[in-house]
């Protein structure tokens, strides 16, 4: 029983780390720019596709991940500067709509380029080892992703809390007008945030493609899970999002074990319950 429990918790943590890699960028971008980037999961999936192509060209997993991460970061910046920037001044409705348009375009474009079938790539040999723990063997990739998620968490923490750049971001986050009055280039802060958020999406997508295949439509279900996590934590609450990723990840993994039919309903039940009791989220401010 204990062995099973450990197994489920580990699988849950793996799931949670996967979700965190998506939700972190989404909530970071929202916190700073007040734009809900609908295209975030589409970027994540696009990162996976790009990694696939680079991997088949070079045969090197690490180069593929690096190239895909940077490409998605640049696409994020291009979208922000070309499409979202002209719309910051007017109602938030239009920023939401433009990211939705980007989602539709990215989804169909990747279907056009990479086809409708689901595709995956092989794990590099150094990660394709399994590790024995409590009587069961686990793929090393589990621990790799969990570690990466923790590193991302710590890196974001240090960047936001311990650096001068973080101070600028946080003041933009609090009050844009005041930040501008203090001669903070908020436009650049916005663009940088989009770059970092998209980097995270690209990196997550590129590394996960070695484990779960990508297919058109994957982004649609991922963005829903990411939204639920972000709403659960309270919008824009970055570190709360890590906790709610873990809650969702472990809850999913546990429920799949005991009541497999409920897997889709589960996150919605959690979400609806939280929204009815605390509409501002678990860690949000009222």
């Amino acid at each position, binding site marked *: 029983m204990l062995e099973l429990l450990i197994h489920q918790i580990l699988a849950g943590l793996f799931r949670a780390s996967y979700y965190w890699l998506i939700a972190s960028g989404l909530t970071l971008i929202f916190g700073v720019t007040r734009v809900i980037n*609908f295209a975030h999961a589409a970027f994540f999936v696009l990162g996976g596709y790009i990694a696939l192509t680079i991997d088949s060209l070079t045969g090197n997993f690490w180069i593929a991940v690096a190239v895909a991460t940077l490409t998605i970061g640049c696409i994020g910046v291009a979208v922000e500067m070309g499409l979202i920037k002209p719309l910051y001044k007017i109602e938030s409705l239009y920023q939401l709509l433009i990211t939705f348009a980007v989602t539709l375009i990215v989804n169909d*474009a990747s279907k056009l380029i990479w086809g409708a079938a689901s595709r995956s790539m092989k794990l590099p040999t150094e990660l394709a080892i399994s590790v024995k723990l409590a009587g069961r063997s686990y793929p090393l990739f589990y621990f790799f992703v969990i570690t990466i998620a923790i590193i991302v968490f710590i890196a974001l923490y240090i960047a936001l809390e311990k650096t001068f750049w973080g101070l600028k971001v946080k003041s933009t986050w609090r009050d844009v007008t005041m930040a501008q009055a203090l001669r903070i280039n908020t436009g650049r802060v916005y663009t940088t945030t989009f770059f970092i958020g998209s980097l995270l999406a690209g990196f997550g997508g590129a590394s996960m493609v070695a484990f779960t295949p990508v297919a058109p439509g994957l982004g649609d279900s991922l963005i829903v899970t990411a939204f639920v996590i972000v709403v659960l934590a309270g919008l824009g609450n970055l570190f709360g999002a890590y906790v709610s990723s873990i809650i969702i990840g472990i809850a999913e993994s546990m429920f799949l074990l005991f009541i497999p039919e409920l897997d889709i309903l589960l996150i919605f039940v959690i979400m609806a319950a939280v929204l009815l009791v605390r509409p501002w989220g678990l860690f949000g401010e009222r």
Partner: protein
Amino acid sequence: MGAVWRKIADLLAITFIAVGVTLTFDTFLIYLTTLFLIFTIFALSYNIILGYLKLVSFGHSLFFAAGAYGVALFASWVIPDMLLSFLFGIVLAAVLALIVGYITLRHSQIYFAMLTLAFAMLFYALLVKWRDITGGSDGISGIPRVSTLFSFPTTETYYMFVLGCFIISFIILKLIDVSFIGLIFRALGDNESRFKFLGYNPVKYRILALVVSGTFSGLAGALYALLYRAVTPDVAYWTVAAEPLVMSLLGGSAYFMGPVIGAAVFVGLTTATARLAEIWQLVMGLIIAALLLGARGGILGVMERLWRKRF
């Protein structure tokens, strides 16, 4: 007298064209006009949320599908009667709109777009998953267009039913538009703080707007299911909600007639570019992006700027 005629000129024009279409006896044209009428109801109801309240909903595929599946499920599991199943579909959509509104609109409208998407995806997943009841990805076919009092066996006769529903819906939605309640919705969309300051409860009116909108979306969905006499889970996929969104933006979401113009152009475009069906989402995305950056007022907005005259 002249003022009255001007007020109902839009309805008269559409009815005139719609009746004119039947005189051609061209089945394909009648089918296209049926689609246009259904999507106009859908887009007009969607625009209550987008144009009046200035909220983006991705949950309208849910209400549309609730109407469609309401008809199909009632007809295949309870009584195979067209009128009763039609009414059931509409009521189901209204009830779901109330539940979704109650959960998503209470705190912050930032949540609204994200959460309506989540609910739409949940509904889609349930439709695919509960094979025994919903037929899974095959859906339900053989929905009867027969009731105790009437039946509409052909596309041409069914067209008259759709036209009747359209005229009733159009009148109700137009009355909402010109009445106090339409003014309330617009005021809420324009400035929530001032709205609250006047002593109104924004949450209550947002939920009311969503229920009205969801009900008519459900009506459109029910008509859609009866047109094909079959439903598949595709009608519940969230990208379906993008269609009335594009129609509203295309025509001009600030105008009552915007979604009508948008629906006409949209149905025309989809038919003319049937070869692009594979990349239709890409085309829609490009249209939305172009409209947002170039012409946020839509077709009517551009015309207004050209002629300096309000439509």
